[in-house]
């Protein structure tokens, strides 16, 4: 466990370094790109000094690290607000979106996968396969508008965009969650099918336990491990998908902040958003790994 924790350190360092270097990838003078060509020299010099771009690269990186360690992401060039504050305002929206999508994915993907595995080769299985294949071929910026049309325009049930209503989280969350549900369905099906042939399932059946109990308590519990791993890995994909989904639905989260900052060429904000999303992903993966070793008795007792 200590080893796994230590392995994260160079990755986090690399992520911070790569994000730091982003501004230096800007072709030409980043300060000119950010302020516009007609900006006065005095303003440019001021911004250059504020961002530390007049210093040598290692010094800049040192200052960047030092500020980050104190939770300081710098200031937005446009609003002059501290970026940490904007992030604090936006993170709850993205977090609730991610949680509701995860819930939707589990509620759809798990039962569908179980049914597909139990009826393998028959029509419920084919239906689930077709459904999950087509859902995973739908990028968020196509599934989102499609759901808007179906639920907003044709059925007139749900608010189409914005955050005014407590129901307005449903469409963006479905957009994110359905794609995940597709992956979860296939994973649950494959994982359960593998377990169903194991001896302990036959033993449970031989003892005369009800079929429902055999599936839910014996087979599913053993099949759950790979499913948890996939969920953890996909939660990061959810965060990347949120960038596009939040844009489609005008959902004021971190992803929307990122896209807005790109449009305004507000690079410090862009950097901060990318960093926050990537570090969240690293942390979620770490926790999945740790959880995995807690859940799997073979790993837990091996030491």
């Amino acid at each position, binding site marked *: 466990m200590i080893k796994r924790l230590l392995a994260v350190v160079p990755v986090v360092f690399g*992520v911070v370094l790569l994000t730091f270097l982003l501004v230096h990838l800007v072709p030409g003078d980043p300060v000119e790109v950010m302020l516009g060509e007609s900006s006065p020299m005095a303003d440019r010099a001021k911004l250059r000094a504020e961002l530390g771009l007049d210093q040598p690269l290692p010094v800049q990186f040192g200052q960047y690290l030092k500020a980050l360690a104190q939770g300081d992401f710098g200031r937005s060039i446009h609003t002059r607000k501290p970026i940490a504050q904007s992030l604090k305002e936006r993170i709850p929206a993205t977090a609730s979106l991610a949680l509701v999508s995860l819930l939707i994915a589990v509620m759809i993907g798990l039962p569908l996968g179980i049914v597909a595995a139990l009826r393998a080769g028959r029509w419920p299985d084919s239906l689930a396969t077709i459904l999950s294949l087509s859902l995973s*071929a739908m990028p968020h910026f*196509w599934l989102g*508008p499609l759901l808007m049309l179906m639920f907003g325009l044709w059925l007139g049930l749900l608010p189409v965009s914005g955050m005014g209503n407590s129901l307005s989280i449903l469409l963006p969350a479905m957009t994110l969650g359905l794609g995940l549900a597709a992956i979860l369905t296939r994973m649950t099906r494959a994982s359960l099918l593998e377990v169903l042939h194991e001896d302990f399932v036959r033993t449970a059946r031989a003892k005369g336990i009800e079929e429902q109990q055999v599936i839910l308590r014996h087979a599913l519990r053993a099949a759950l491990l790979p499913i948890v791993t996939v969920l953890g890995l996909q939660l990061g994909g959810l965060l990347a998908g949120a960038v*596009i989904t939040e844009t489609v639905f005008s959902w004021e989260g971190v992803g929307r902040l990122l*896209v807005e900052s790109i449009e305004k060429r507000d690079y410090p904000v862009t950097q901060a958003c990318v960093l926050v999303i*990537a570090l969240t*992903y690293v942390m979620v993966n770490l926790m999945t790994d740790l959880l995995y070793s807690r859940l799997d008795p073979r790993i837990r007792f091996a030491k």
Partner: protein
Amino acid sequence: MKRWPYLVLIFWSCAVLLSHLIDLQPDHINLEKVLALPNTEAWLGNDDLGRSIVARLLAGAGVSMLVALLVTSITLTVGTLVGLIAGYFGGWVDRLLMQVTDVFLAFPGILLAIAFAAVLGPGLNNLLLALCMTSWVGYARLTRAQALSLRHRQHVLAAESLGAPVMRIMRRHMLPLLAAPLVVEATYSIAGLVIAEASLSFLGLGIQAPHASWGSMLKDGVRYLLVAPHYVLAVGFSLMSLVLAINVLGDQLRDAWDIKRAR
């Protein structure tokens, strides 16, 4: 029934050829036909500037094919080379290269490509650059994992003791044995890149107006979603059937060659 992915792919190729052979005038603006429903002149209707959606779909098909094929061939080469070097030499070379790939993999999905495209600025060249910089990693990991075990196979050791140069060992003795999973991975990645190009263009980071791209068409279509749903539906279904076809093709290849997917 099993052949339908090929049909979609042939259709895609024909669309690309057609858009080059015939001048479909995808940029021709006709303000009398703004957001018109499908009609005899434009089979799928017209967009917000009265341009024919079919013509723009065909032009956009060319862009997505160019991006997908170009980026796949470049990153497949670079990624395989990196993976071979890491797997063959092992030791600190391997540790260093894998540390680099770990950092790239720490950015979920398309996030890093978005970040690169954002700082490089919009346009086709920068889009290609951003996608190339981020999509070599998967091939490197896949190649390295196999190369590690191939490294100590007898035929590789024999070639080595006969004094064969490193490049020759990698190319003639290792590459043929690890090519199959790479081809499967490349097939999936073509679908991924079609989506990635559309995503970046959707965010305004890829292909710029007036040039057609499925992503920027979807972006315009979403703006007029409630008045002209046919626009979004036409683009969306094209994109979906293409991605689905490539993915199914990848599945068929994988099953035919009996490969367990590494991810």
